[in-house]
């Protein structure tokens, strides 16, 4: 690995302290009600340019909120929460002995993205996903990018999610990434940057859709005339993207959604999407293979399945090929897939491209396949696998965020400035023992947006996960899941770590 690829080709970003002190303000610059408890900090603020001065796309909302009392806000917040509870819009938390289902905390105030900013995001993501798809095809076929030493071959082959079984396998329509959720953050200077891609089984889209519906129910008059772009077509677009993966000889393909079952944290989403698309929600035990075709067991007999939208990880999908102890998967599915008798979305082996160490090469991958500069920047990333970078990481654990490369959901992570000496010591040992398994990034202050917490409006950090569908072309519904770190000062937005979400509005202009 050359240092050049990691350090010089990416834009350097300034590192910011996490809990930056609020910018001191004059008495006449105090926020007016209902924002009396609000304050600005070094983080970019989604709503305010200065105290009492919202960005222009927030003006109308700001004025609306002035007309509402705190009691009224409280009332609507409760109405929204009740609506989620009664609809059973919940997710499952592991290691929680209070029972496994929880409501995904919802915040009343929408996060607003103006049309021109969205256009940049859309172009940037389209470029990025196009390149990643080409990268996956290359990795599992000729490996040109490795031969040209743009991305180190060692890095790819040592990746936990690299699947040698996929080598030489032609996936339907050459599409590996039918559904992607890419996490974007807003830097202190207001620019968006990519934090990570989720290319395996990204989740969260149901909350994006449910948030919008609840928002419409609870705050109908705020919507009027705001020019919010609709996201209703997501399910139709997803189904169309899945159907086009079926073999051309199949006229009316049968598409199913494969779920691990009710104990999976995203089970609500699986049922939601299956119902929205009108396709069967199946578990592994509902599917059987026969003569290398896949069938589902129905009350009328066995029915052929043409496309499987799987929400099960690679490891568990077929005990004959991957983990033999999996009882969630379908024995023989991979062989049917290999022979082209069934399409599987997303393709297997995608994890190699969302590996956090491979992420560091994102701009190089885009340059290599498209000969373009990345529109959305990466976050500066240190790879301890390189001895020089290792020593930097080890010496700066108190300032860096360290992540395990193969993990997601906010697990296996050290946030330096928020950690204890003991935690840093533990990570030091772990990183030295297995440097390939970790990356480090500067601690970046995510942007702030007002949230309704304990009866008042306070700043909280947010990120944005737009959902990208790769069908006849790349389609991105205008919006995404805005995740909120509900604990004051926290930078962790994952739902499994106490995060919440809010409705995300992309405006026409």
């Amino acid at each position, binding site marked *: 690995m050359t240092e050049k690829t990691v350090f010089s080709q990416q834009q350097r970003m300034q590192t910011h302290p996490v809990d930056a002190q609020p910018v001191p303000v004059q008495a006449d610059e105090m926020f007016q009600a209902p924002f009396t408890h609000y304050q600005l900090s070094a983080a970019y603020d989604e709503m305010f340019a200065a105290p009492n001065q919202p960005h222009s796309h927030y003006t109308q909302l700001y004025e609306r909120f002035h007309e509402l009392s705190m009691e009224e806000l409280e009332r609507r917040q409760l109405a929204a929460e009740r609506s989620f*509870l*009664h*609809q*059973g819009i919940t997710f499952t938390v592991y290691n929680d002995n209070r029972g496994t289902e929880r409501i995904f905390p919802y915040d009343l105030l929408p996060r607003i993205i103006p049309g021109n900013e969205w256009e940049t995001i859309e172009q940037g993501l389209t470029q990025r996903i196009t390149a990643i798809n080409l990268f996956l095809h290359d990795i599992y076929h000729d490996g040109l990018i490795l031969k040209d030493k743009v991305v180190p071959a060692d890095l790819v082959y040592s990746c936990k999610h690299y699947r040698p079984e996929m080598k030489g396998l032609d996936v339907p329509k050459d599409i590996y990434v039918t559904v992607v959720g890419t996490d974007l953050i807003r830097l202190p200077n207001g620019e968006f940057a990519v934090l990570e891609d989720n290319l395996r089984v990204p989740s969260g889209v149901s909350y994006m859709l449910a948030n919008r519906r609840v928002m419409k129910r609870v705050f109908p008059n705020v919507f009027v005339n705001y020019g919010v772009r609709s996201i209703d077509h997501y399910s139709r677009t997803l189904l169309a993207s899945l159907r086009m993966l079926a073999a051309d000889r199949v*006229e*009316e*393909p*049968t598409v199913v959604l494969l779920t691990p*079952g*009710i104990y999976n944290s995203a*089970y*609500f989403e699986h*049922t*939601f999407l*299956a*119902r929205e698309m009108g396709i*069967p*929600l*199946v*578990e592994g*035990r*509902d599917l*059987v293979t*026969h*003569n290398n*075709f896949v*069938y*589902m*067991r*129905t*009350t*009328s*007999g*066995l*029915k*052929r399945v043409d496309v499987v939208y799987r929400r099960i990880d690679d490891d568990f999908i077929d005990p004959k090929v991957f983990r033999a102890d999996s009882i969630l998967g379908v024995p023989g599915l991979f062989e049917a897939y290999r022979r082209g008798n069934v399409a599987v979305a997303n393709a297997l082996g995608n994890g190699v491209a969302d590996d956090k160490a491979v992420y560091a090469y994102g701009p190089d991958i885009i340059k290599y396949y498209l000969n373009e500069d990345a529109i959305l920047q990466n976050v500066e990333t240190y790879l301890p696998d390189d001895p020089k970078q290792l020593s930097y990481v080890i010496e700066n654990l108190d300032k860096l965020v360290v992540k395990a490369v193969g993990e997601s959901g906010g697990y296996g992570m050290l946030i330096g400035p928020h950690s204890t000496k003991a935690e840093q010591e533990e990570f030091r040992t772990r990183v030295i023992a297995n440097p390939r398994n970790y990356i480090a990034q500067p601690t970046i202050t995510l942007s702030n947006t007002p949230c309704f917490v304990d009866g008042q409006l306070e700043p909280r950090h947010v990120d944005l996960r737009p959902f990208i569908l790769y069908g006849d072309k790349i389609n991105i519904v205008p919006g995404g899941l805005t995740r909120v770190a509900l604990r004051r000062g926290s930078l962790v937005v994952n739902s499994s770590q106490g995060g919440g979400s809010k409705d995300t509005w992309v405006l026409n202009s």
Partner: protein
Amino acid sequence: MGAQFIETTMHTPVMLSRVADSLYWMSRYLERAKHTARLLNVHFDLMLDQPHGTAEQYRQYLLASLQLPSDYDKTQDDYSLTRWMALDPDNSNSVRACIGVARENARQVREQISSEMWEQMNQIFLFVEQVNIDAMWESTPQEFFQNVKTSIHLFQGLADSTMVHGQGWHFIQAGRFMERSIATAALMDVFFCPEHHLAQSTIDDLQVPKYLLWLGLLRSCTAFEAYCKIYTVELEPRSILEFLGLNAEFPHAINFSVQAMRRALQGIADTTQSERSERAYRRASRLHADLQYAQVDEIATNDLHAYFTGIQRQCTGIHDAIYQSYITYPIVADPSVN
């Protein structure tokens, strides 16, 4: 018989066997919870103005109807009986446990039932989860049981009015009326043939007025008012047997329930169009014909206990046929399919 491989288009809805199984059991467990709630509610209500001795003896009927042993220490008084049958998580037949299982089944087929049904199911579940025995006892247990019954009725009404009356709905109907047929037959067996269910000593010195027993039975089937409209308020065992057993128009009568089950199975057979389909439907039709053409005098003069257990056995046979036809059929490789 092996599995058939079917050719259908997107527009011919097919149903996963697992989904059918969940809908069927969701419905059975709700009906079971409602039945238990009703039995307890009737008991508390009837005994309010009865002397202590009578109430204690009627209790023997209640315990037998709930299929509980009479010397069980968890059910020695009304408080512990209520706790055991309404809320105890260790009792798989308690109202709370039944509703928990029903919801778990509903959760597995959430995309198959309407949002209205799912929301109502959640509300029943949340209501029963938050109740504690002392609060319930304080406010009167009748209120709790009444709430359970009403909310389950609402769920069933929503199923009828918001769901396509296709295969899924037929499985819900089949489950509901299967449970009701078996429960009513078992309940009638207790009241008509107490010698098979109660300790001999209890029967010998039974002080419960007869009319109270028959009233209890009718009300446990929500049948008292309907009965009076046909037979007046004279509570005659022969008439009650005829009404609860053979009436074709009263929804809790066995004949009506079996007929509804038969219709559901016919609906399933029509939509699945599989050669295995006929089995369950044919069995239900046979039982229905027996009930439809039976004469009450003929039944009354024969062994009633054998009659009621026979009905329950035939229902179990229909249940098995449903499983063999639609849910657990074996997969045998068919050489004609590639």
